């Protein structure tokens, strides 16, 4: 055997693949489309990190000081400085990035994607926002953003085609410089590009998600190159008749698979380009990417281009091991040697051996070794594909015969347990991986989820109101807003025993009407002009010492805008109250003061907050509130309360898993269907003969169902065992208490079973068609 002979035989196989007539083309196309789908998915997956990196680069390029607390402040206006205010908002749960720009000189820097500063009353918008504002759906947002649209933001200023963003002209921003919403900048771009390091557990999740999603794609590709195998074997037998030896025949078969893989690469590149274009109009979890961002790294693309055809050749040679192709058109499958368990167990055991040393590491003890994690998970999951044929063979060999449909299915499985196991491999790997990840997600969820203390029965939104705006007016405006059924407005500040920052004893002050104050404390009686000292507050140390009639105190001048300390004397008729949890779940201490008892000059020192009860049956209630808030203060960004607050990254990984798992299961379902139909087509004549001598269609349909269901049940059972094992190890690695997420296990197993059921149902119409007597015709 030499290289020349190898290449000659492979080339002959390639030629056969392309010149095999209609039947040959169908087989080639099946393989090509199957491999192509797998390749496209591989390329898309490898392109995602690049796409996200490109997004990050764009975000870094337009970074301004409003996005972070920074000490690097430019104190004076120059001809190259720009005042910029963050005016973000939210519309129908989607974030809208907004900035107000006021150039201080002719050389003021322009943000990326902006050619000219908008004047006051004008704005530049992203194409997606322009479309939204022009539609009926965006009417309420238009009310909030009434400026005249004078242009659009260029691609370089946006992180995705679906991003909602605007820049509007501003004036008088310097007066807000110290409030945190306005910054003075002389350029855009993040000076320190080192991004926040990933939490090791999150990194572990990402690695496992990638492996779990890519493994079934690999299994799928391996299945796809074997499409049409039985028919090909018959063709190869004819080659044996005219003198090719068994080695040559194998290489020719490998050549055919190679041709399919090559076509698959071409089709895969096409599918990828189509998918990339389609990805531009998709938005998943508020993330959209420009098609141009989705570029797989050249090294990974080259790896795919080399590995897929090579794998096709190897898989074919491996598959032909147990097949003896003889001349005279007879293909006899040699009675295969009994499958051995020991080497099949080596894979999962090896995987566990890689993972076990990392047990107990958790987030605190440094990063996980990426290679060990990936290797361990890959070996464990590959272990399923090695173990499943053994499990199927061992179990079906012990199954007795029952009804005819059962007997037909069991006997077929006994003869070809390998191909049955192959059909299920992909699903089993996907389900095992998903079960393990579900467990990991459920386990670490608490780490990335904080229960918010907000009392959602009393308020569902909060709005900050600038100092100096009368709370009474604000309350009136919110009360008049559609969808608002309760308004609790508070002013907040502190008092200390000495003026300025030197005070040693400090306590809280809450200002509000009687109705609002009853939300924070239990009061004996209340009317405007009353002052209360409240006991039982959290972190409240000094109220008992400071709450003495005639005690002179000073409102904290550093809270709010700069001002001289304002003195205040605790009135002799102050009342006492007991703190209760306020709508945010906190217990306030200190003094509660009704507006009538407040010195006039204190107004401007108060931080003001309004808590709103929302009637959620009113559509767009949140948007009405946001519009009212924007009218009161253009820089306000009302908060919608939720019971939990989760890490954004955690959520996007979980969503990625679900979307990926759905794609993978769909892909595997498609390959199952193709294999099933192919098997049925191969047996067309036999099926017709069985019907000719009176076999009921129900019997044959049932036998197809058993034939699919049996390996699936075994595959899913193995998947559950491996999935739970992997999940347990991963949880132990992250130092999280072990708990099995049975709902997740059932869901994933159910998904797998549903795919099989769908495939069986879809293969029934062709089965019934193939059972027609026309199948007996030979001429």
């Amino acid at each position, binding site marked *: 055997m030499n290289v020349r002979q190898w290449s000659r035989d492979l080339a002959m196989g390639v030629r056969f693949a392309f010149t095999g007539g209609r039947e040959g083309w169908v087989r080639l196309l099946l393989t090509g489309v199957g491999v192509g789908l797998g390749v496209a998915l591989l390329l898309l997956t490898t392109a995602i990190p690049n796409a996200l990196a490109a997004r990050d680069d764009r975000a870094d390029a337009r970074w301004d000081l409003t996005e972070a607390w920074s000490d690097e402040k430019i104190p004076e206006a120059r001809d190259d400085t720009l005042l910029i205010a963050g005016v973000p908002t939210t519309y129908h749960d989607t974030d809208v990035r907004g900035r107000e720009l006021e150039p201080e000189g002719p050389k003021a820097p322009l943000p990326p994607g902006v050619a000219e500063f908008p004047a006051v009353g004008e704005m530049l918008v992203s194409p997606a926002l322009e479309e939204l504002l022009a539609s009926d759906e965006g009417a309420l947002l238009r009310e909030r953003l009434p400026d005249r649209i004078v242009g659009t933001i260029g691609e370089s200023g946006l992180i995705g085609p679906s991003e909602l963003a605007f820049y509007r002209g501003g004036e008088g921003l310097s007066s807000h410089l110290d409030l945190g919403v306005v910054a003075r900048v002389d350029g855009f771009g993040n000076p320190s590009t080192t991004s926040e390091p990933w939490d090791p557990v999150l990194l572990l999740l990402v690695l496992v998600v990638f492996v779990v999603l890519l493994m079934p794609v690999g299994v799928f590709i391996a299945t796809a190159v074997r499409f049409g195998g039985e028919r090909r074997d018959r063709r190869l037998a004819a080659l044996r008749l005219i003198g090719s030896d068994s080695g040559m025949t194998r290489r020719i078969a490998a050549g055919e698979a190679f041709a399919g893989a090559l076509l698959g690469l071409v089709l895969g590149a096409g599918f990828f380009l189509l998918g990339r274009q389609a990805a531009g109009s998709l938005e998943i979890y508020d993330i959209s990417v420009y098609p141009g961002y989705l570029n797989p790294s050249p090294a990974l693309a080259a790896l795919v281009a080399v590995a897929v055809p090579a794998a096709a050749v190897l898989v074919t040679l491996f598959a032909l091991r147990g097949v003896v192709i003889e001349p005279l058109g007879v293909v006899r499958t040699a009675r295969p040697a009994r499958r051995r368990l020991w080497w099949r167990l080596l894979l999962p055991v090896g995987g566990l051996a890689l993972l076990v040393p990392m047990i107990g590491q958790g987030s605190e003890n440094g990063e996980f070794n990426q290679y060990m994690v990936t290797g361990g998970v890959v070996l464990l999951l590959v272990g399923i594909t090695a173990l499943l044929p053994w499990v199927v063979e061992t179990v079906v060999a012990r199954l007795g015969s029952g009804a005819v449909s059962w007997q037909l299915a069991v006997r077929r499985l006994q003869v070809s347990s390998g191909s049955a196991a192959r059909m299920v491999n992909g699903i089993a790997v996907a389900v095992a991986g998903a079960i393990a990840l579900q467990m990991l997600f459920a386990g670490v969820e608490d780490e990335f989820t904080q229960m918010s203390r907000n009392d959602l029965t009393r308020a569902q939104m909060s709005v900050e109101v600038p100092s100096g705006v009368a709370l009474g007016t604000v309350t009136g405006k919110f009360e008049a807003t559609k969808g608002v059924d309760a308004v609790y407005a508070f002013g907040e500040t502190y008092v200390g025993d000495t003026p300025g920052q030197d005070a040693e004893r400090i306590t809280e002050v809450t200002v509000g009407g009687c109705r609002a104050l009853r939300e924070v404390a239990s009061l004996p009686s209340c009317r405007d002009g009353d002052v209360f000292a409240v006991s039982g507050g959290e972190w409240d140390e000094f109220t008992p010492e400071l709450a003495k009639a005639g005690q002179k105190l000073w409102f904290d001048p550093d809270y709010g805008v700069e001002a001289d300390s304002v003195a205040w004397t605790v009135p002799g008729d102050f009342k006492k109250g007991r703190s209760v949890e306020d709508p945010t779940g906190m217990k306030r201490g200190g003094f509660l003061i009704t507006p009538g008892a407040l010195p006039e000059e204190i107004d401007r020192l108060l931080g003001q907050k309004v808590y709103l009860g929302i009637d959620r049956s009113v559509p767009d209630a949140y948007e009405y509130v946001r519009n009212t808030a924007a009218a009161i203060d253009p820089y306000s960004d009302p908060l919608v309360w939720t019971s939990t607050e989760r890490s954004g990254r955690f959520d996007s990984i979980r969503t990625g898993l679900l979307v990926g798992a759905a794609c993978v299961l769909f892909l595997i379902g498609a390959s199952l269907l193709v294999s099933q139909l192919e098997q049925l087509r191969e047996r067309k*004549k036999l099926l017709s003969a069985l019907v*000719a001598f009176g076999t009921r269609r129900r019997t044959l349909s049932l036998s197809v169902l058993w034939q699919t269901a049996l390996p699936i049940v075994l595959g899913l059972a193995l998947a559950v065992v491996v999935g739970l094992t992997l999940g347990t190890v991963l949880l132990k690695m992250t130092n999280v208490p072990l708990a099995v997420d049975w709902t997740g296990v059932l869901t994933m197993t159910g998904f797998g079973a549903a795919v099989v059921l769908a495939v069986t149902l879809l293969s029934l119409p062709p089965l019934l068609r193939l059972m027609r007597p026309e199948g007996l015709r030979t001429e």
Partner: protein
Amino acid sequence: MTAETMAPAGSLLAAHDLRKAYGPTTALDGASFSIHPGEVVAVMGPSGSGKSTLLHCLAGIVPPDSGSITYNGRELATMNDSQRSALRRSEFGFVFQFGQLVPELTCVENVALPLRLNGTGRKEAERAALTWMERLEVDDLKGKRPGEVSGGQGQRVAVARALVTNPRVLFADEPTGALDSLNGERVMELLTEAARSTNAAVVLVTHEARVAAYSDREIVVRDGKSRDMERIV
């Protein structure tokens, strides 16, 4: 004239003026046929003449476009699909050119299959199957799968399968077409002997005169038309 009156007296299965086309191709163009219990009738003709289509119509596998077929005085056209399937299961037997044995089942399971489809229990069905396999001299193959036996052996297993339900009509479509002459003759001897012993009628489709010689009567099909042949002895 009713279908019954068209059938020759005493015939078990009869067809009159059958027409059948597959798209633009006419397979049968006014063919007629009849067979009596215990009779062996060879249907001869060149390739593509319509012989197999005639067999499929007679067996109720394919409905003709027009014409009538009566079995035991009953018009096949009046039966629905499941009734025709039941008839094939219980009254008819089939042998095809390539046996069409189920490759995953052992030989004895293949022979027992028609009985099992009729509701007979596995053990009883396999016992009956083994009796027929003995008569066809293939009982030593009972545990083997079709892929492990020779073509001639496989065809004898197929004949055993066709006869295991004691059918009243045995349809054999080129039963020796894939065999060498020695094996072919042995299969024909066993097939006709077994059929005669159970008084089963045999519809034998063949294009080989050597095979047709085992029949009592010959019908030639040409261009979809049938013609009774006088046997020259």
